[in-house]
């Protein structure tokens, strides 16, 4: 059994990161956030929008956190602090977005999901895909305590059972019912063009949408 997660690090300081930071603080986690540059550059933003969290550099966040959520523009994943992320449990919440990332054949080929590309780059980290299919304002508005009748689901894809279970616990604590959908390669169903991208529905509906989806190659 792995040690329980106390500190969540978030790499990225944009819209998604801020919402996830707010939810993690509310859930009682110690939260660290990094932007693309110095900690100073985002300190004010972080202190106002996610009070209680700490601004650091991405390398510091990677070193100090028990679990790191990636929420930078996907196209820049090769700028992640690979060395510091070694052996770490990672949640990849990123999506390919043409409007931000431009044309990127490495991320849009049909044979590999984008989280697999991230896993290939962070070859010594443990990458799990989660939170990517729900829009940031839906994450903000729809987090609910365990057992709420209108609780929504968040799908999780990952290769290692223990890692996936740890991520499921975090998803649950942040306010969503975790839905395990299988290995990282299955994450394809969660990304743009997939079965549930943009869906904010309960876990049961989420499951049905994923099961009935046929990928058209």
């Amino acid at each position, binding site marked *: 059994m792995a040690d329980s997660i106390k500190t969540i690090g978030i790499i990225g300081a944009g819209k998604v990161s801020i919402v996830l930071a707010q939810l993690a603080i509310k859930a009682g986690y110690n939260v660290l956030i990094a932007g693309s540059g110095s900690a100073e550059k985002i300190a*004010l*933003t972080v202190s*106002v929008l996610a009070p209680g969290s700490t601004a650091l550099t991405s390398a510091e966040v990677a070193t100090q956190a028990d679990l790191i959520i990636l929420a930078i523009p996907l196209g820049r994943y090769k700028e992640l602090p690979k060395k510091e992320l070694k052996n770490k449990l990672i949640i990849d919440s990123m999506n390919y977005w043409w*409007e*931000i990332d*431009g044309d990127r054949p490495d991320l849009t080929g049909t044979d590999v999901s984008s989280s697999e590309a991230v896993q290939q780059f962070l070859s010594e980290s443990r990458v799990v895909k989660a939170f990517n299919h729900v829009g940031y*304002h839906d994450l903000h508005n729809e987090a609910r305590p365990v057992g709420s009748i209108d609780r929504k689901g968040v799908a999780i894809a990952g290769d290692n059972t223990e890692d996936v279970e740890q991520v499921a616990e975090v998803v649950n604590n942040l306010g969503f019912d975790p839905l395990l959908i299988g290995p990282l390669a299955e994450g394809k169903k969660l990304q*743009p063009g997939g079965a*549930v991208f943009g869906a904010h529905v309960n876990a049961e509906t989420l499951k049905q949408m994923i099961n009935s989806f046929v990928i058209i190659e």
Partner: protein
Amino acid sequence: MTDKEIAKIQFGLDSFGDIPVDEDGKLFTHAEAIRQVVKEAVLADELGIDVIALGEHHRPDFSISSPETVLAGIATVTKNIKLASGVTVLSSDDPVRVFERFATVDALSNGRASVILGRGSFTESFPLFGYEMTDYETLFEEKVELFSKLLKEEPVTWEGTMRASLDNADVFPKTESGHLETMIGVGGSPQSVVRAAHYGFPLMLAIIGGSPDRFVPYIDLYQRAAKEFGTTAHPVGMHSPGFIADTDKEARDIAWPAHKANFDRIGKTRGWTPMKRDHFIDEVENGSLYIGSVETVAQKIAKSIKTLKVERFDLVYGGGPMAASARLKMVQLYGEKVIPRVREILAEK
């Protein structure tokens, strides 16, 4: 709110030049769609609506790619309405030309021009004008800096990496007031909020989904950042989509198919799942769609103005393939009934 505070609040209409349909459901041409916007702006001016803001897109489903050209047309047939962009995608434009074009609209309109600069949520202008997505941040950062210098209306010396340097360059026409109103449009990126504060620009929030109150901390951030930079924190404005008809049911019945068509068409290119009716209703009831009867929409606008303490509210109207007649009627209801009713509600103790 006091009478003085209420009097300060401005109400606007925003459009991207969506393509309306005629009585038989046939889509307008781009040219007809542009003339429709001019017609709506003229009516808005007659009704005393404060602002018309036109946004820039370069896609088949929106007719306006050059907002200031349409604004110039509107300028010559209106008297009081403020003529704004919403937004001008500065990253893929030239700040000098943007200034020149808006200063020209300002001349034609006797000082009614206003620019809202933004990065835009669509970036099809990048490949169109030969810009790289990888320069997304740098382009905006550099060009905002240059634009803020041009606004002083004195010779500019500037150096950057994304555009030719300027050495004591003077730019014309000058405005008569010496001040071209300029704001920054932000969709929720914290960095953009801080940037607006850094240059002392007023902030216009695009709140297009979810509950508006989540933007309260962003306004706090804007004010605290301005304090830190020693700049002025100006009044903040917001824009959100909506539609008004005689009854809630009629408004929903007209807006739903148009809104869904818009959402799903964009979703196809971005890869999200089609919009469901319950999501739409949830946005109408709890989120950021101002759709309904005069009373429903007025109550919702008043609530947002009070919650966010904004001094300007713009309704993004006519989204999706909607009947031109329904759009025109909506402008009428907004100017004649909704705005006075919002002021009334705000005055209630």
